[in-house]
């Protein structure tokens, strides 16, 4: 069971820290859809696919001292930044290092905004549908975010690139 914890630490280590809880959630979800061993269960929530179990694991990892959580005051809201701790390097050894293709994926995702990752993750959530139906679905569940055609275009391109990378 601790392997699930360890693979989260590996993930954060590879990204050299992740800023924003939403970003972490969505990055892990996208990685899961690409085949990264994420066993945490995801459901659809306010900001798209979200895993309560992952939130719990992250909190546990902070308590265990393998991840550190930094609260950043952004005026209107607070943001949380996650980093691995020096103690985590031995713990990570419970699972093998990431493959090169996953490392590239993480690198790609890290440079995207959390709004964009939310769109990508939501599209992945409805990936059993045809493209048009996917777009329609996103407009229904994410009406307030008003994603533009350009954003959809970019998101689909991003998904194709990620998938290509993995093959």
């Amino acid at each position, binding site marked *: 069971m601790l392997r699930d914890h360890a693979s989260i630490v590996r993930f954060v280590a590879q990204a050299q820290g992740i800023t924003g*809880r939403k970003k972490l959630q969505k990055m892990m979800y996208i990685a899961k859809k690409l085949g990264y061993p994420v066993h945490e*269960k995801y459901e659809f929530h306010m900001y798209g696919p979200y895993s309560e179990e992952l939130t*719990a694991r992250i909190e546990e990892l902070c308590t265990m001292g393998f991840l550190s959580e930094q609260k950043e005051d952004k005026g209107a809201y607070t943001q949380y930044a996650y980093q691995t701790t020096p103690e985590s390097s031995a713990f990570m050894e419970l699972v093998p290092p990431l493959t090169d293709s996953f490392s590239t994926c993480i690198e790609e995702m890290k440079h995207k905004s959390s709004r964009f990752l939310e769109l990508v993750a939501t599209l992945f959530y409805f990936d059993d549908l045809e493209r048009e139906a996917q777009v329609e679905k996103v407009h229904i569940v994410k009406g307030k975010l008003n994603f533009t055609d350009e954003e959809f275009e970019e998101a689909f391109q991003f998904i194709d690139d990620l998938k290509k990378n993995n093959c």
Partner: protein
Amino acid sequence: MRKTLFFKKKLPYTERTAQKDGESMLPYAQQKLAEEKVFKDPVHRYIHIRDQVIWDVIGAKEFQRLRRIRQLGTTYLVFHGAEHSRFSHSLGVYEIVRRIIDNSFEGRPEWDQSERLVVLCAALLHDLGHGPFSHAFENVFQLDHENFTQAILLGNTEVHEILSRVSEDFPQKVADVIAKTYPNKQVVSLISSQIDADRMDYLQRDAYFTGVSYGHFDMERILRVMRPREDQVVIKSSGMHAVEDYIMSRYQMYWQVYFHPVSRSAEVILTKALHRAKKLSEEGYQFAHEPTHFKSFFDGTFTLEDYVSLDESVLLTYFQLWTKEEDVILADLCSRFMYRKLFQYIEFDPAKDFTKMRELEQLFREAGIDPDYYLVFDSSSDLPYDFYRPGEEGERIPIHLLMPSGEIKELSRQSEIVEAVSGKRRSDHKLYFPEERLRGNTPAERCIRDVLGLKEV
């Protein structure tokens, strides 16, 4: 004036005449039974059915299957009363939602009456995809019951056929409410939020059948003060104390019942037995009894029909048969489950003790015990109530109180009791093992006892 329950038992005049003139005059969605039907229920006293659609869905074979799946899985090995099924829970959730919309919401401008049937169906069918001992089964075969709920609603099933008669897109609408991807968030929140019909039913039902004295709260009071708002359901502030009781009962039930270490131990064994059977099958092992029902799950080729034909009776039959299997591990694990010879456990802090894990695995091997099946780490964790912090990526919609001034306030800001448990996660980590097999005098066994902190006898 709200209509009372008693009054509602009589069908309104217009509906009665419509029935006389022949059912075909009304579309299926609006057809009512000639007389109201009731199910006797120990928690809600009566479950009332008047809609033809609801009556038909209950009769569908995929819904009847829920009678053969226990609501609490392995908990009956600790609390012997906990034999109640997902069937009874599903009816309970339906009844709570029915009371909310028919007694509190009907006629209010913020409530859209055309959503009535979809939300009642979603309430009734929200757990449709659960399999036998869901948690263990999903873990071993990497499945998700929510995907099966969707698949049964949208696939070639009796439930799908019935829902399709309402309208072509009706099965999809029901599926969207359950998946929380339905446009009307108020409808979604009746079935999944921090104070929803699902949880209100299972807390009370599980308390009743386990016999524990936690889990009770004044649901009628909460239902009376629920009010529909644009995106969610709010609670009139005068009902705050009933909600406090509900939050506390939730907290108690999680730790006293749902995370009970002995029932977790049974689940650990069940999971490992299924893992073992899967592995044996992959290795081409010849079972004394061909595991026909599981074959397609072992090799991942199962169909929806295979899934729907599984239930806990089938699984327990195999476990009984497997107690006689030649494979020692499978036979032992199944006997342990059937005859309740469960694993012992110790508290295990993974932060401090994770290095011990490897050492123990090695020692178990030396003692001739396979750690893959006999040394299991398991953790439980729960967040009793989460509040929303503006701008932050919190995902749970908090409970909102409607103040006399019309203002909306978040619960934990008004209630000190709720504030005390808000946003605080409690976790529990344990390590499970067969204690009676570690009593020998070999160096490995002595060492294991030492690492686990077991007393020398």
